[in-house]
Each structure stands twice: as structure tokens, then as C-alpha cells.
């Protein structure tokens, strides 16, 4: 299993966001976590990526992940493209993307010359003309592209992407989905967080339903592990 989550609980003060969620994702799968807004999907994503305090276990490619340590998870290949992108607005597009490489190198030269960055830019050619532009001045759709490019630069083995199409026009959303599908064909595991189930099914094999912080459906993977499409 690429990702095995069991009894995951996330609370903010006395507010229970996620309650004993368990699910698994096999390597190479493309899975969607769906559910109404405010029902815990993003909290699951943040907790799995190590960005929120949690209880329960998260196993990444078999290894148990320490809670609250995003650096550990990124180094093992789990990359999160969060809701609202969380980019660096005063840094340039290329700086933002290159920083994605921080997960595996400390050399700027190595980052800029790497396959990972070249790959990311190939997916989004419209960014190539804007490499030195400050990210804060880009439109919403372009920023989402940079966020995904940054994620690709981190060389993810499993990519969690949270509501990428929020506030974006149809044509941009389609492009993002195409890129995700291409990444999945390359063998990367994709976990898509999407509020619209119909849209989620366009891309993913399986849907995990979350309601009020509880996984109500779809937790088990039909693939024993290591299956492709």
C-alpha cells in the first residue's frame, strides 16, 4: 500500500474535524476523497502530510509516519498541493517551483537543471513565459498551475491535491485534470480531494466518501498493492 491510514483523528480545540478515519490507497491508484465542505477532507490531507496534529497511524509505503513532521513525509515522496495553494507571493515563479526541489536537494543549480523541474514546466508551458514574474501577481488559475508544478518538482511518489479547481474556469480545470491523469499514467499515486463527486469520478478509479469527519464509503482498495490502472 502506498498509503494506509487507520483511526485518524484530528481535532481543533473541542471541534472534532476528523473522527477515526481509516482508508488505504494502493500504489499507482488514483483515488478521490469527496464530501461536502467543512466535513474534514482538508483536515485529512493536512494530517496525512504532517501539517496538522493528529492521532492514529499513517503508514507511507509501509513505514509509519511520525505525526506533525512534514519534512519526513516529503522526503519519503508524499507531496501535498494544499487548498489555497500556499505559494510564496513575493518570490518568482521559477523560485517557487525550484523550492519544490528542496525536498531532495540543497543546490539551486541542481534544482534548476533537474528533470523534475523540466517535467513540471512541460506540463504547463504557459508558465515558461512568466518565470521571473512574482507569483502574487498571477491569476488564480496560473497560481494553481505553479502550485502543482511545485508539487511535481518535489518528485512525488504520491501526490495529494486539495480542491485544485476551486474558483477556476472550466478550461483551466480540464488542463489540471489532464496533467493529473498523465502523472497517474507515469505511475504516481494520486489522491484528489474534490467536493463534486461527479467531477471526481472523471479522473479517479475509486471514491472515498467523507461525511462529518467520518469515512463512510470506499475505504478499502480493490488492488492488493502495486496495481496500475
Amino acid at each position: 500500500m502506498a498509503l494506509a491510514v487507520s483511526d485518524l483523528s484530528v481535532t481543533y480545540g473541542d471541534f472534532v474535524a476528523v473522527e477515526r478515519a481509516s482508508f488505504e490507497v494502493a500504489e499507482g491508484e488514483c483515488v478521490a476523497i469527496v464530501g461536502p465542505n467543512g466535513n474534514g477532507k482538508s483536515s485529512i490531507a493536512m494530517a496525512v502530510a504532517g501539517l496538522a496534529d493528529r492521532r492514529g497511524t499513517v503508514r507511507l509505503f509501509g513505514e509509519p509516519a511520525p505525526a506533525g513532521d512534514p519534512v519526513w513525509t516529503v522526503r519519503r515522496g508524499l507531496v501535498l498541493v494544499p487548498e489555497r495553494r500556499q505559494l510564496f507571493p513575493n518570490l518568482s515563479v521559477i523560485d517557487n517551483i525550484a523550492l519544490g526541489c528542496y525536498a531532495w536537494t540543497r543546490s539551486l543549480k541542481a534544482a534548476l537543471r533537474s528533470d523534475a523541474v523540466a517535467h513540471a514546466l512541460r506540463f504547463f508551458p504557459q508558465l515558461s513565459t512568466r518565470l521571473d514574474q512574482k507569483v502574487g501577481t498571477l491569476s488564480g488559475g496560473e497560481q494553481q498551475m505553479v502550485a502543482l508544478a511545485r508539487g511535481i518538482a518535489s518528485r512525488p511518489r504520491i501526490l495529494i491535491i486539495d480542491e485544485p479547481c476551486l474558483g477556476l474556469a472550466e478550461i483551466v480545470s480540464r488542463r489540471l485534470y489532464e496533467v493529473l491523469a498523465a502523472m497517474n499514467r507515469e505511475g504516481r499515486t494520486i489522491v484528489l480531494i474534490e467536493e463534486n463527486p461527479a467531477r471526481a469520478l472523471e479522473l479517479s478509479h475509486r471514491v472515498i466518501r467523507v461525511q462529518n469527519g467520518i469515512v463512510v464509503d470506499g475505504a478499502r482498495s480493490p488492488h492488493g498493492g502495486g496495481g496500475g490502472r
Partner: protein
Amino acid sequence: MASAVGVALAGVIAVIALQGTYYDSVLVLAIAYAIVTIGMAVQIGYSNQLAFSQSVFMGMGAYAVAILNTRYGWPVPLALVVAVLGSGVVGAAVGSVVTRAPGLALALATVLFPIPVTTYVTYSTYLGGYTGIGGIEPLWAGDSASSSLIQSGIVAALILGLCVLACGRILRSGVGLELALSSDERTAAALGILTSRRKLELFVLGSMLAALGGSVFAGTQVVVSSDLFSQTTELTLLVMLFVGGRRSLIGAIVGAIGIQYLAGSTTLVNTHLLVIEGVLLTAVLLFEPGGLAQIAVNAAHAFQQRGTSQHPTALDDRGPSVRPTGPPRPDQVVPGPGGRRPEGVAPTLVCQGLSRRFGGLVAVDAVSLEVPRPGLYGICGPNGAGKSTLLELIAGGLRLDAGRVVLEGQDVSHWSAAERAQLGVARTFQMVRLMRHRSVLDNVAVACLPSHRTTMARAIARSDLEQARERAHAALTRVGVAHLAHTDPGRLTLEGQRMVEMARAIAAAPRLLLLDEPASGLSGAQRGRLAELLSGLGEEMAVVVVEHDLELLASIASRLFVLIQGRLRFEGDADDFRRSDLVRTELMGLIGGAAAAGEPG
């Protein structure tokens, strides 16, 4: 009212009770500081105006009284009044310059004030130089030094009570609500609040209270010296404010008394005073930013509510029973604030050739459109098309490079956002910003305040807040979320936030309502409710909606505008929209059912 009386009474009793002891002089001195810290609570704590000039004004008040009394023989009470009024004038002059600068510049500039002032005072022989001025008569002279102290102390306590009364009334009035919002310039402008005036009034208030504290200091301490102006005094005042509770008047008083007591308590504490103050301040900042006052309030709350856990109030929980009510009854629609033009035949909004670029990028390119009368209008287009920029240009948040914006016949192209808001333009933001420390009702009420017609001084006597709250309640009801009126804004769901934002926008009965992606992040059912609400609103006012959800727009809008790469490429009604080839190719058609129902090919 009650707290003011309580403070005055407690002060008077304490002064009398402690007479003859060392603590009496500590208390009286603390009262002088407390008058200053109350002003700082309003200025820094409550309104986030980071000005650090209070020690300068305190010294100014003290020295004014000292000079008028010792050199010219004026009686101290008269000198006090003149000193405070004079400081008010100086405060207004300085404030008119200083409050125009952005927050951090204001902070830095005022932090530097004490330095040149202290140097000047120390070198000036007229002002007593290093040794200062002594021999000042007491506020209320008695037969002996100790009875003078007690009597002056009583006067000081009464003055403190009056200050609490005045500040309390300001904070609880409509002006107080505006002050709470004043640090969020963008929202305040969108609601038509003239923050520049409030900031100036706030600075003057802080300065006058500081001067009053200084005058009381002079009238009770006999001697004034130049370190009253210094940074050390300012630091001490800040520590008093923060430890006591910066958002609380009573907290400020408690802080002043506490720190002053500490400063004089034992030699051991005195030698290590700096360290103790530093540790206290750090502890407060870390563990309870609200200071001692907040600790007390939390304790009281915890005692009252035990065991109830709080979940965010979700609209979904309440199911379909929550439906927006119909158009407001005539008696609910009170004419709004500001210079409103009578309804005539001029079209609500006319945009001619609007253009705006950012560096090399042309965001909006010669866009002309018209919103002739109340109804629902939609603006859509792919990302980066300039929709949000266009909205900002109409609302006044961005300046035009070219073109004209005409609202009901009035050319507002050079008007600020606040001025356009007063003319009847309301807008929502994608990222809703609500004031954390006020209820939802107050957050909406702030849109109903007649900002340009009230002054802080008037607010002491009369509050417009109740009337504004009534209108806010009506707006919340109209939108269907009256039950959220007393909720803590931090606990709202996304839909709740959006509805509150909507209520805030319509509360002042605008002529033109601009909505920026109101459906983003909402579920299907929630969008349905939104569509119903918008349709209803469209019957009373002109509603312009920027949206990505084409289905939503096409189902409710009477007229649609399509923006592509900054240019207006389509204009027409919903049927034209569905049939248009341009729309189909550029916008990838409508999702699902609507496209299938449209024309083939």
C-alpha cells in the same frame, strides 16, 4: 456607566482608606498613569493604532501645568484644563500628519518622538533642564502635605472615573464599532467608513488622555522632570497596558496599579524591575494576550459554562427550513446613510472604456457595459480574464487608467471606494473578513452606521449603535441567517460566512451590489439557496455577480457579460448565452444538462 461609578468610588475609598501609608502615594501615582493607559487601551489595544507617543503628551501635560502654575501663578485646576486642551490641539496637528502614514511607519515615527523631545527638554533652561520643575501646587490643596495628597488623590480618582465613563461610551457606540474595524482598511472603505477621520480622532483622544494623566501627575507629585518624556516611561506604560489587558479599560487601570506597586514594593524587586517587567510582558504575550483582564473574564466564563462543547453552527444542519424571506417590508427599509440621489431615470451603472494595466499586462481593456436598472447581471470568463479587476475598478478599490464609471448619472471615476459606498455601492469579497471580537450582528451593523455624520465627541453623548443593530438584524433575516446574529464569527461555516457577508452588503440598502464569486466553495444545495436569494435581491437592486458557475449564472441572470483576456466579447441574455458559439468554444460550454438541452453542433 456602572463601571465608571465603580472605579471612581473604589478609587476614592482606597485613597481615603490608605491615608498615611506609603501605599497611598503609590496609588495616587498609579491613578495618574491609569488615566494614560486607559487612552492607550482605546488607541492601541482596541483600535490597533500603534502610536507610541503617549509619554511625550504626558510630559507635555505635566510641564504645561508646572509652568502655568509655578511661573505664572495659575491655579492648578485651570492649568489642567488648558494643558489638556492645548495638548489636544498639538495632538490634532501632529495626528493629521502622522495618521496618514501606514501602520508600521506610524509606529516607528512615534517611537522616535521621545528622543528629540527629551534632548530638547534636558537642554532647555526655561523648562528646568535636567532637574525639572518643582514646587507645583496640589490639585486640591489641604492643610498639610498629607491631606493635600489625599484630597488631590480624591480628585484624581474622580477624574479617572470620568475618563472611564467617556471612553466606555465611545467604545460602546457606533464609533466604537468603527474603531474596531479601522485597522481593516479595505473592508472599512467598502462599507463607506471614513477611516482617516476616525484615526485622527483616535490619536487626539490618546494624546488628550495622556496629557490629562500628566497634568494629574503634576498636580499630585509636586515635581516634574524630563524623564517623564522618555522612552523608559513609554515602555513602562506599555508594560502596564499589556499586563493589565490591552483591550480592557479596567484592565488598563489594574495594570497601572499593579506595575506601579511592583516598582515601589521592595528593594529587591526594584533592582530587578527591568527583568521582572520583561518576564511579565513575555508571559502575557505568550499565554494570555488579553492580560489579567482576559484571565479574569475566562475564569468567569469557565465557571458559568461547564461541559457544553461547541460545534460550528452549520446551515446544513438546519435543513431546508431556512429559506430567505421575501423583500423587506417598507418599514424595514430605512433610507441609508450618505448622500443618496433620488431615484431617477439615470441608469444605475454605466462603464465607458474602462482600462487598467499592471506593468506590461493589460488586465482590463476598454470595457464598456451598462447596468440600466435593478436586476441580476452576470460577468463570467476564463481565469485571468480580468473579472475581479473589473469589479475593483467599479467599486473603487483600483484606480482607472482610462475610462469612466458613472453611477446613476454621477461620474465617480475619481471617487474613493468609501465615497462610492456612501453613494450606494456595496460589494462582497472572496475572502470574507469579519471582526473576531464582535458578534455577527455587530459585524453587519457596522455597515449601517452614518459614519460621515458622527464624531467621536458626539458619540460620548449619543450612540447610533442600537439603530444600526436593528437594521443589521433586518438584513440578517432577509438573507435567512438571523439565528446566527449572536454567534462568534470564528465559528461560522463557509456558507455562514458568505451569508453574513451578504447581509453586511445589503444592510445599507445599496443601489448596486457587486458580488465576487459568491458561490465558490459552496455545495449544490447551498448554491440553490444562494440562487434563490440572489433572484430575490435582483428585484430590489442591481446585482452584478462575477462567477465561474455558468449554470448558476445562466439560470438567474437576465443579462450576461463575457470577459476574455480583459475584453468584453459577449453581451446578451441567457438564451443567447447558451446558443453562442463563442461561449461554447471559449468557455468549454456549460457543464452537464444545460449544454445537452441547447442547440446541437
